[in-house]
């Protein structure tokens, strides 16, 4: 399975390292053509303002949107979650606006307020998930199309899913527990294979099918 990790800025190497351990074929994505044969894309942690500018500069917004609408799995961690949200308070640039959620940037405070906490993730069973929140965004609204996936002990939703789209306000790539990465690989496996989509789009444009 081919999983791309957006490598414009942020902790993409950490994601690639977890994916590789899980046996996925992980690659760095900096330009639109690197999206072509992916089954899934991870938008890593980093600075959302920086990544948003680079997404626009390298003309990645519409190709990622198009691939996601065709069914490619996409997961945003922290900055990535901000970029996937339909509504993002405090982001001064256009994001991908793919998920029916609202997020608030830096809502938990500055770096001295960054924290670690145990989460309950009913979909993963009773064992809590140890999560690292760094200048984290708050998921302030879950729309009708999205559903909560993980909560802090106080009840706040910190991960959500909408079909094959996933957001986490924290960083599973910074801990040893790979259950979120495993979950994402399952979503990517269930999405329509990239090769079929490619053939279809070539057929649609009249291009010759590969032999």
């Amino acid at each position: 399975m081919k999983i791309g990790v957006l490598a414009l800025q942020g902790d993409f190497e950490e994601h690639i390292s977890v994916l590789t351990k899980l046996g996925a074929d992980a690659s760095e994505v900096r330009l639109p053509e690197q999206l072509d044969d992916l089954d899934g894309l991870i938008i890593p942690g980093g600075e959302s303002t920086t990544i948003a500018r680079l997404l626009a500069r390298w003309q990645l917004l519409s190709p990622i949107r198009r691939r996601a609408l065709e069914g490619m799995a996409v997961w945003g961690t922290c900055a990535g979650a901000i970029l996937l949200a339909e509504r993002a308070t405090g982001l001064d640039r256009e994001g991908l606006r793919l998920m029916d959620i609202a997020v608030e940037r830096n809502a938990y405070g500055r770096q001295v307020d960054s924290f670690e906490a145990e989460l309950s993730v009913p979909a993963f069973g009773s064992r809590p998930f140890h999560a690292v929140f760094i200048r984290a965004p708050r998921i302030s609204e879950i729309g009708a199309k999205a559903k909560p996936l993980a909560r802090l002990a106080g009840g706040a939703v910190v991960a959500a899913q909408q079909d094959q789209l996933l957001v986490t306000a924290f960083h599973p790539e910074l801990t040893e527990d790979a259950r979120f990465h495993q979950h994402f690989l399952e979503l990517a496996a269930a999405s329509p294979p990239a090769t079929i989509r490619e053939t279809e789009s070539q057929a649609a444009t009249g291009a010759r099918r590969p032999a």
Partner: protein
Amino acid sequence: MPAKDGNGASQASETGTWKVKTGLAQMLKGGVIMDVVTPEHAKIAEEAGACAVMALERVPADIRADGGVARMSDPEVISRIIDTVTIPVMAKCRIGHLVEAQVLEALGVDYIDESEVLTPADEEHHVNKHPFKVPFVCGCRNLGEALRRIGEGAAMMRTKGEAGTGNIVEAVRHMRAVWDGIRRLQTMPEEELMAEAKELGAPLELVRETRSLGRLPVVNYAAGGVATPADAALMMQLGADGVFIGSGIFKSEDPAPRAHAVVQAVTHFQDPKIIAEVSRGLGEPMRGLELSQIPEEELLAKRGW
């Protein structure tokens, strides 16, 4: 300690941990951190795509030119910069000046640079960085110095280079020295590590960890002398996790386009065609200094122990 957030973070949540300190540096990877002296500069840096800014009173080139004692910036300036941008704000304290560090933490900066660019407050000891909730970045010239700083609690490293010169030669020397030290550890049999730790002046545990990771245990940026997009990409190709740029932006002819170009060059550091494209027509870079023109006692990289 419980997180004070009112957003439902549980009683069990913990702040100021090693994980969240080193974690913020990991979020800054592949990015550019720019020195700024005013809120206007900070806005230009954020607009250009900087992943953080370093708030200071004078850029290193001016500190070098002005002479005198260089101290922590005016809290007023730092607060105004914090209020102006949404990206992380770093600020510098003098080596060993634990009260400047406490003040910066109280102001809410996101990272403290215990920096040789300012005049040292202690000629033997650095700040004990572990008790702070705010993380620290420190400069290094080689592996031993890096591991000593990490041992004291630095959650991020950078090369020292020679700040305020616009000359990349020292940053290259320091980055190569760090990697040479790491490669040496990796070829060494286990029984030689203790003597090597002694030689490096570094804690054995960190020597072991570095050997098994094949890199520093924390993020390592390049700093000190970056002036062009190609300089920034050079440091990335030499194994930096990101690039600090100080005088190189705001001492150049046209700061905004240069800042933007350096950000693009760090993202696409392995793509010479893109580096060529973004380097076009940026105007004059900062003038720059030949290292041999600088009197020995004015070299900043020598500060730190």
